């Protein structure tokens, strides 16, 4: 039976490869971080205790782990506020991104077939420049003596420089700009699949174009809306670079808090605890999305 054995083995490798990858680069690091979050800060190298050593044994090591970092996070409103503020900023910017991306994706899907690859290229084009450089470019645009202020003053629309830099508004602009392609692409993919005949059928049955959009196009694009929102929301919650560069000290976000704990305060255990809670916060929407996908797949059967 060795002949039937080898294809089975091949299949096993194919299935095992992604799990092995996840184990090595997600699960193992996660457990290291989780272990760190249960440790205490110390003035040493590495800057935490306990460290595992063969001489004292595993029992002694485990007994020194505790959850006081988590307790501290929930007792200090700074962290709770940072989480809430992150969720709020991520939610608002996800909605804004959706509002900007939907018409663009719709336009792309309705454009002549020959144009669509070019439009897709234009959406992806910004990725050819470094993310960091693009955010720095926004500083040049948004700062009080920046391009936007100069432009609007030239037009005579404003007389005072705009105060956008170092506010939450700047963070929203940065996030919407940076994550727009992640919203457009799944939206485009689902809109492009909708047959124009369905809209003809809706109109034929007496539905005006605007109603036909809400009755047919929008419900059928929901999978793309869900996917796009998750692709924007999840990284936006943990976003660090944009609030740091554009939001200034005024913006409170968990990514920034984590960075401060880790590098400025050198409190690795507390930073790890913040990271673990952030992960838990993000797992909820992922599970919701998974369920949504599952329902869809079952309906499609």
């Amino acid at each position, binding site marked *: 039976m060795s002949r039937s054995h080898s294809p089975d083995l091949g299949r096993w490798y194919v299935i095992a490869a992604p799990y092995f990858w996840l184990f090595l680069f997600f699960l193992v690091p996660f457990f290291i971080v989780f272990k760190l979050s249960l440790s205490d800060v110390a003035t040493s190298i590495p800057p935490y205790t306990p460290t595992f050593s063969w001489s004292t044994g595993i029992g002694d090591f485990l007994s020194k782990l505790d959850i006081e970092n988590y307790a501290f996070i929930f007792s200090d409103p700074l962290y709770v506020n940072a989480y809430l503020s992150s969720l709020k900023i991520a939610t608002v910017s996800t909605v804004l991104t959706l509002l900007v991306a939907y018409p663009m994706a719709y336009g792309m899907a309705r454009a002549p077939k020959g144009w669509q690859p070019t439009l897709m290229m234009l959406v992806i084009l910004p990725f050819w420049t470094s993310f960091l450089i693009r955010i720095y470019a926004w500083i040049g645009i948004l700062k009080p003596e920046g391009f936007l202020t100069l432009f609007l003053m030239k037009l005579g629309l404003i007389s005072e420089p705009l105060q956008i830099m170092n506010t939450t508004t700047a963070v929203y602009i940065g996030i919407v700009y940076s994550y727009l392609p992640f919203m457009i692409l799944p939206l485009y993919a689902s809109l492009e699949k909708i*047959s124009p*005949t*369905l809209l*003809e*059928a*809706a*109109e*034929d*049955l*007496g*539905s*005006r174009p605007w*109603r036909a959009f809400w*009755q*047919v196009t929008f*419900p*059928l694009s929901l999978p793309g809306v869900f996917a796009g929102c998750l692709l924007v929301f999840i990284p936006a919650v943990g976003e660090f670079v944009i609030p740091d560069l554009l939001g200034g000290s005024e913006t409170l976000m968990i990514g920034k808090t984590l960075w401060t704990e880790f590098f400025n305060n050198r409190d690795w255990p507390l930073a790890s605890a913040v990271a673990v809670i952030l992960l838990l916060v993000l797992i909820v929407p992922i599970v919701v999305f998974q369920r949504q996908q599952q329902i869809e797949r079952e*309906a*499609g059967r």
Partner: protein
Amino acid sequence: MSVATAHDMKANMAGVQRTGPRTAAPQSGFAPWKDPAKSPIVRFENITKTFDDFVAVRNVTLDIYEREFFALLGPSGCGKSTLLRMLAGFERPTEGRVIVGGQDITSMPPYERPVNMMFQSYALFPHMTVEGNIGFGLRQEGMAKDKIAQRVDEAMAMLELRPFAKRKPNQLSGGQQQRVALARAIAKKPRIVLLDEPLGALDKKLRQQAQFELMRIQETTGTTFIIVTHDQEEAMTVASRIAVMEKGVLVQVATPGDIYENPKTRYIAGFIGDVNVFEGKVAAITDGYIEIDAKDGYRFKTRSVEPVSVGQQVWLALRPEKIRIAHDQPVSAVNVIPGKVEDIGYLGSISHYHVRTAPGERITALRANSAHTVERPISWEDNVWLDWPVDAGVVLTA
């Protein structure tokens, strides 16, 4: 088309339907197109539609009457779907007018027109149940909920869809989807139902069933149906009248019987059913009969009132089932040709015999296999005689 002659009117008054010579096709009493007092429900008036350089529909004028089951027939790309889409409102004619019930609707948007369409792809809304799909049109009118439910149920009952009310389209078979699409198109009780290749996706058996279902629905609802199809059998089965289109032009509009028995051109004769065509010149015209000198040296005699002159080039079209085939030379028969059987298509109920004549012409004759046993069956390479009576053929001038 609606111009009736004095002769027709007399015939109508006498309660007799006659269109030219009496043919084998059944004649129905329903013929509003012959009644000058009737005004059409749909009128295409000098419709031309061009896409860039391509002329899809060229100067079509056509009247369709209330309660008709009208078929637009032609090969793909002949402009029949474009004509239907102009009636639905999805295309605007480049020239001409579309009139429904006396009202010019040429520039009316689709959602205001009193027509509903059943799409070739069915175009069922995948996110709605069967009920939701059928009720979609009714919901647009702001009808009361219980009234909608009642009308939806009515449509579902008519098409035996009740057991599937809560299913989504992708949980239905092709035949069920087709019925949902039809139910959706009739649920609003439109004045006209448009059917764009409605049965194209079904297999042959289901298709025949669905054709009779279409006819049943059309009769019970009393709605005007306009069907677009490339399947001549389908058009013959369901339609009260057929309009044959070729390259954007209407070639002939007539009842299925007339189209089959009295085709106007060789194109129509060939498109509707099988046909043998002999090319020749008119040799003599005598009191309702035309004699034709065929290219191959044969002389054929046929009954015809076609206005032709001696020496004019004509074609004699002959349906295979009207040609007799036998081993022995027929006595005292006109139109006799000897030949050799080259090929036989045995279809069970009937057989096609492809016979090669001495000048090299290939003629198809058709015979019903009515007897269970035959003493001397016609076989390959047999020398046979073909003949047909004087009223079997049609003289064509184009």
